[in-house]
């Protein structure tokens, strides 16, 4: 079939080599465009530093330890806020999925919350919690909570009733029913919610740090802009991209390894 549409790769590389190749090609293209824009003075040089200048800034920030400190602060915020949001989301999601009364009470609230862009909460978060850690934790937890509670509720609703009957026929005590059956059976959906929640939390983290923070990567970006260090601004943007990809990969790995190791899609060996 491949020949008929004119694609015939005589040498087949493994998929990851192919992916790596396209990734490198895309990176090279971006670098070339970027360098070209700097070379033709698309914008004044001090507003658009070239790749070399950004790399130098990156080196300086890394060696001085400032980049590490900012990363540490941001990641600590993200992880704590996410953990709070995820814990509340999973618990309430399970209750919603199991008890129609709880769903009737919470579903309208969740529906309302999910239509509000998380950034819109920033003014209230500052008024309620100041610009300290609490406001960031609130925003991140809220942002993570919404997709996770929705996914958990859906996952619990979709549990095969026969599986629940099987568990009930084994006289499973209710606490083991929760942790040993319901939570596990809903896990594929919960995992989807966790990944989506993480991505959204990452976005709100940067937004919150840019508007209301005195530390973290978002703050680093804003301060660099205010003092005209556009090399650091670009460095920050690129660094956030890498950090987002890396943390998502870590989360995906942890989910596949510890939460869904039994799941068909996560076991390549047997497929």
């Amino acid at each position, binding site marked *: 079939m491949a020949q008929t549409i004119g694609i015939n790769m005589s040498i087949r590389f493994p998929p990851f080599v192919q992916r790596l190749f396209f990734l490198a090609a895309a990176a090279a293209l971006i670098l070339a465009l970027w360098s070209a824009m700097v070379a033709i003075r698309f914008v004044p040089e001090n507003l658009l530093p070239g790749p070399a200048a950004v790399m130098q800034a990156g080196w300086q920030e890394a060696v001085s330890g400032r980049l590490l400190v900012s990363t540490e602060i941001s990641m600590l915020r993200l992880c704590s806020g996410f953990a709070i949001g995820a814990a509340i989301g999973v618990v309430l999601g399970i209750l919603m999925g199991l008890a129609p009364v709880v769903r009737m009470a919470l579903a309208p609230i969740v529906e309302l919350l999910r239509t509000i862009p998380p950034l819109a909460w920033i003014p209230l978060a500052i008024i309620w919690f100041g610009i300290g850690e609490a406001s960031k934790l609130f925003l991140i937890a809220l942002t993570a909570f919404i997709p996770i509670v929705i996914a958990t509720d859906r996952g619990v609703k979709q549990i*095969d009733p026969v599986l629940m*009957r099987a568990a*009930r*026929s*084994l*006289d*499973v005590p209710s606490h083991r029913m929760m942790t*040993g*059956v319901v939570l596990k059976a809903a896990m594929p959906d919960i995992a989807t919610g966790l990944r989506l929640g993480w991505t959204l939390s990452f976005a709100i983290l940067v937004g919150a740090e840019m508007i209301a923070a005195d530390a973290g990567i978002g703050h680093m970006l804003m301060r660099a802009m205010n003092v005209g260090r556009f090399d650091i601004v670009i460095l920050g943007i690129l660094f956030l991209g890498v950090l987002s990809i890396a943390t998502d990969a870590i989360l995906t790995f942890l989910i596949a390894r510890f939460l869904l190791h039994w799941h068909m899609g996560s076991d390549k060996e047997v497929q």
Partner: protein
Amino acid sequence: MAATPRSAQSAGAATPAQNAPAELQLQMRGIVIENVTKSYLDARNITVQALSTIDLEIASGEFVCLIGKSGCGKTTLLNIIAGFVTPSTGRVLVDGERVTRPGQGKGMVFQQFALFPWLTAIGNIDFALKQRNLDKATRQTLAAELIGLIGLKGFEEKYPYQLSGGMQQRVAIARALAIDPKVLLMDEPLGALDELTRDTLQAEILRIWAAHRKTIVFVTHSVTEAVRLADRIVVMSAGPGRISQIIPISIPRPRLRTNAEVVALEEMVQAALG
């Protein structure tokens, strides 16, 4: 009905349950279904009678097949015995104890296997063993015994999706046995399997039943299966669901399909199904 099967001649033979005085039945082992009916309201609020009065006694260690066309209420009756469905009237006793909920030592095997996909074969069995307050060493011994019983040595650490349908159902049977149930309730357990696997598993179920002598109530829509397995076949019919005939079988096992008695009995059950 020229060649009357041996079973039909013994149709009048009473089971032990039927001979026992009423007050003793409460202590009796086995299953007693008394005056059970089930009706429910449909979408237009009209009462639908799913089961008209059912009275049935199943002796301890007996293998009973419930057979009937769809809508005859055989699965509803099994679900009432299991405690998943509450009867509108009447009651069910298992070993003298009134059925009020699932569990209480009623092992279930479902058509869809219903294994916990996040647990391995032995994990599923151990999950059930954990309800019995046994120490870890005893649980391990019992789990290994059950794995041996169902012939899955070497597959202990496989997850359900790595096992064939027949293997999954073996694990499900072992899991149901792991709670050391008083009765084993099986809801078309071989319905989702291919012909060859079904044949093998019928033999396996008979072997396991012979080894453990659990009371088995087995829902099926296959005449061949019922004739091969049961001590008694309870034929049900629809509109409303009721027992239309009870056919005891005394043909010794294994009941080969080449046996003329078996063939005659199959015809008889088929005729009873209408």
